[in-house]
């Protein structure tokens, strides 16, 4: 009898989260509309991309090069490889979003685990990890990534993801560490220890749920950041390899003043898509952070 009773009630905790989320998004129009736009965009991009054969965006067709919008059925015109801008937009968005998502997940998981362990145990473990991360923090990370991109053999999208994650997990780690540090000073952690609960369980079943909503809000904002990072690298020419288009590579057209001014349709749509995606994620992240703050107080 009790098992059933308890499960229903535990949903209470989940229910509580659902109710706060719904109330927050209902109240905040900016976040709500952002959610609709982002979901719509993601659907178009990820489903659309399935129907686009590789040839559409790889084979070069000089004749159709730089067609202005609304010519030969190309609503937004074509780029220097003669590819239709809309197709390019869909494929590039899929690539950029996948990379950014992968980096966010890796940095989030790795950062949370290391942050929790150092925050909880403190002492030597904490000192070593902090010295190490302090050192990485002083390195010119962007420069090093660019150099590594140029010298790593057999370079592909996965290498880019690993390279970006290798340096950008530290931000999440430090945030998680500081929160876990304060939580583990509170008496309920001491009480769990004297109640015989293992350190592992205390970290991941007692402490993490208390900071989970904050982490989700931070992960959303870092997702926006990672999109900027990947597309930026690709814009400079050190992001995704040649065969895989990214929103950044589309914007790269603007580096040549002549194409920037004469053929804006080649890069402006990509810039607009990046801005929309990032803005919607930021507004959603803001709403999530408010939910996290509320859950801290109640």
């Amino acid at each position: 009898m009790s098992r059933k009773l308890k499960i229903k009630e535990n949903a209470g905790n989940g229910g509580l989260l659902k109710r706060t989320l719904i109330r927050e998004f209902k109240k905040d129009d900016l976040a709500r509309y952002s959610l609709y736009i982002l979901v719509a965009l993601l659907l178009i991009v990820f489903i659309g991309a399935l129907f686009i054969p590789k040839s559409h965006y790889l084979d070069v067709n000089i004749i159709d090069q730089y067609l202005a919008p609304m010519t030969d059925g190309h609503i937004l015109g074509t780029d220097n490889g003669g590819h239709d801008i809309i197709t390019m937009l869909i494929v590039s968005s899929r690539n950029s979003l996948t990379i950014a998502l992968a980096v966010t997940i890796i940095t989030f998981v790795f950062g949370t685990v290391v942050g929790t362990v150092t925050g909880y145990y403190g002492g030597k473990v904490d000192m070593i990890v902090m010295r190490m991360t302090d050192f990485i923090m002083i390195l010119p990370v962007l420069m090093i990534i660019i150099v590594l991109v140029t010298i790593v053999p057999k370079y592909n999208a996965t290498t880019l993801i690993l390279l970006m994650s290798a340096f950008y997990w530290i931000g999440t780690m430090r945030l998680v560490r500081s929160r876990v540090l304060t939580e583990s000073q509170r008496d309920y952690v001491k009480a769990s220890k004297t109640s015989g609960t293992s350190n592992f369980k205390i970290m991941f079943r007692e402490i993490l749920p208390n900071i989970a909503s904050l982490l989700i809000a931070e992960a959303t904002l870092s997702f926006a950041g990672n999109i900027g990072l990947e597309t930026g690298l690709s814009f400079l020419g050190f992001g995704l390899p040649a065969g895989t288009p990214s929103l950044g590579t589309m914007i790269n057209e603007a580096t040549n003043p002549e194409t920037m001014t004469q053929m804006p349709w080649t890069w402006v749509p990509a810039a607009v898509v990046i801005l929309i995606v990032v803005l919607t994620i930021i507004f959603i992240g803001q709403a999530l952070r408010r939910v996290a703050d509320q859950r801290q107080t109640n």
Partner: protein
Amino acid sequence: MWKVIIRRILIMIPQLFILSLLVFLLAKMMPGDPFSGLIGPNTDPKQIAALRQAAGLNDPWWQQYIHWIGNAMHGDLGMSYTMKQPVSTLIGSRMVNTFWLSLLAMILTYALAIPMAISAARHEGSLWDRILLIYNSVTFGIPAYVVYLLFIFIFGFTLGIFPTGGTVDPNVSGFFPTLINKIYHMILPAITMALLGTTAIFTYLRSGILDEQNQDYVKTARAKGVSEDRVFTRHILRNALLPIAANFGFVITGLLGGAIFAETIFGYPGLGKLFITAITGRDYSVITALILLNGFLALLGALLSDIIMAIVDPRIRIE
């Protein structure tokens, strides 16, 4: 006070060593060497091999490291492959440009961020506060290079208000005209960088003010009869500015670092743009020098921050 600074210097020494080792290994991983640029169709391979032998490229790696670090100590960072001049002079010339641009950007950033933070904190919860919060979270999340592109596209190329590259127009002469012209070239990149760079300072200062105003010593000050304005300036603000002072060390040393995206997009010949040209030209000696420089500047920034904190915060000064 000195204990803090000496401890920081002691930490810096191993960090510098590891940094130089890392940069050296990075350089070793890069294909080619100073002489690969000279290989033309008719150069004699034996001659190149002799040059390499003379430069000690075949010695064991740690010998090369000591040789390299020895030179670096005396400012000799080797020859630039592509630009046929010593790396140090090349960096020296570009660093001046970067310094002035970053300085202007820094001044504008603080001039924007501090009043924003103070007005937002003093009207906490108002519409104005919310607008500033949204503005700062947007500028924090948005990829800066996209905004740089849009700004140069609109204000540079289309409207032509601002120059679209270089540091000064060739035909300008005389001290003041060149100065004005130089600033004219820096305005657009500096303003854009400032507009997008306020978030850190704004957030720190705003939450700092909100925290400090609930502290007991503010109640004590009011109980002493101190007027509201004086409570704000002498008590709340002074305490809230501590974290800003703390990261000022990094900001100052960052002035010499160079902004890769901004300088490349605005065509401004600073260290950032130099890095991209060096990468495209596979000019590895310039690349390694720039990475070493930036790492060193960051270390210096940490030392400077500690010194500033020790001066500003008595709790650190008098342990």
